[in-house]
């Protein structure tokens, strides 16, 4: 398989995903970005969103994240995040709680513009998720 590269999604508690993949779409800091094999080495931050993983067998798997860091080097992609959840495992309760938390945070007047933007974005992503 020539077009494959290794993806590892790691949380502080365990390795959540580790396998060869064809393509990974990441909600990167400045916009979504898809990574294929032989991508240039990159380090970037993630914003809230969905990581779409296209696996070798053609199936895809989605992960919801709230923040994180990505490193691509030497055909291996590493996603570090304390808040990764497989979309399949998301519960309605969790999404609702997060939605409420985010809205509560938005009511705080003292937050920086950038943070406000991230929070708004998080709300949008949450809306898209259907549980």
């Amino acid at each position: 398989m020539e077009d494959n590269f290794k993806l590892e999604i790691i949380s502080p508690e365990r390795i959540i995903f580790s396998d060869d993949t064809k393509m990974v779409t990441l909600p990167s800091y400045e916009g979504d970005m898809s990574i294929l094999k032989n991508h240039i080495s990159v380090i970037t931050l993630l914003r809230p969103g969905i990581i779409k993983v296209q696996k070798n067998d053609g199936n895809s798997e989605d992960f919801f994240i709230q923040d994180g860091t990505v490193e691509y080097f030497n055909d291996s992609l590493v996603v570090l995040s304390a808040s990764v959840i497989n979309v399949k495992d998301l519960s309605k309760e969790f999404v609702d709680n997060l939605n409420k938390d985010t809205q509560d945070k938005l009511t705080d007047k003292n937050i920086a513009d950038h943070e406000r933007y991230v929070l708004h974005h998080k709300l949008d992503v949450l809306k898209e998720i259907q549980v």
Partner: protein
Amino acid sequence: MPSLDDLKKRISSIKSTQKITKAMKMVAAAKLKRAQENAERGRPFSEKMNNIILNLSNSISDKNDASKFLVGTEKDNTHLCVVITADRGLCGGFNTNICKKAKNYFDKILKEGKSLKIFTVGSKGYDQLKRVYGKYIIKKINFKGFKKITYKEAENVGEIVIKLFSESQFDVCKIFYNKFKNVISQIPQEQQIIPIENQKKEELKKSDNFYEFEPEENEILNNLLPRNISAQIFKAFLENAASEQGSRMTAMDSATRNAGDLVDKLTITYNRSRQAAITKELIEIISGAESL
């Protein structure tokens, strides 16, 4: 010479203690397995995190502009020591070893005339340090009643440290914990988390590659370094949890064995005094019969 009744009581009390220590050993062994797995599963995260930060800090050309977490405050006056211990005792020298290591460091700092601040995580560390270093302890936290320590707790501790740092309460931060080597040996560690210790030169050369950064290096670092603190603290928690169970297991194992030895010894004494009493009675009967 204790009476037969006393001996009997002591033997049975030691036997029941032995039962308890044996049970604790079993429990520790079961928990150890899980804690060890957790510690091993947690390692990749902090390793990769370190790696990324290493790569980032290498590519920063302008050190003046770099994050304070990386370069420090250029001062070395106030040291914050985060002493991470267990909330429970009966685990051999586990807590004492961490405290001993920390105390050595405290004395060194105080001798150099620098000021010291202590943040204890876990109630046992606080108990051991409060008598001598009570006035230096600025914060204490424990996780009594928590079933499992998750990343959230580490994040909380990390946030406290970061908050103190942003208020310029200290210049250097070190954490003290036990590294889990194997069941019988746990090594007390001292690790500097602010500013991040300079890595060895060899490692620098090895990772000499070009990256594209999005956003700017400094911005990523500013975002990443506080997270790294939580990650390092979480790693310390995991190592500590495994070490605690390992240490308890060995301590309880030797306690069980000591209790066994003691029971054997007391049983011999018991049997001997029983025999002595019988012999005495026989002699009395025989000499009584003879005198007739």
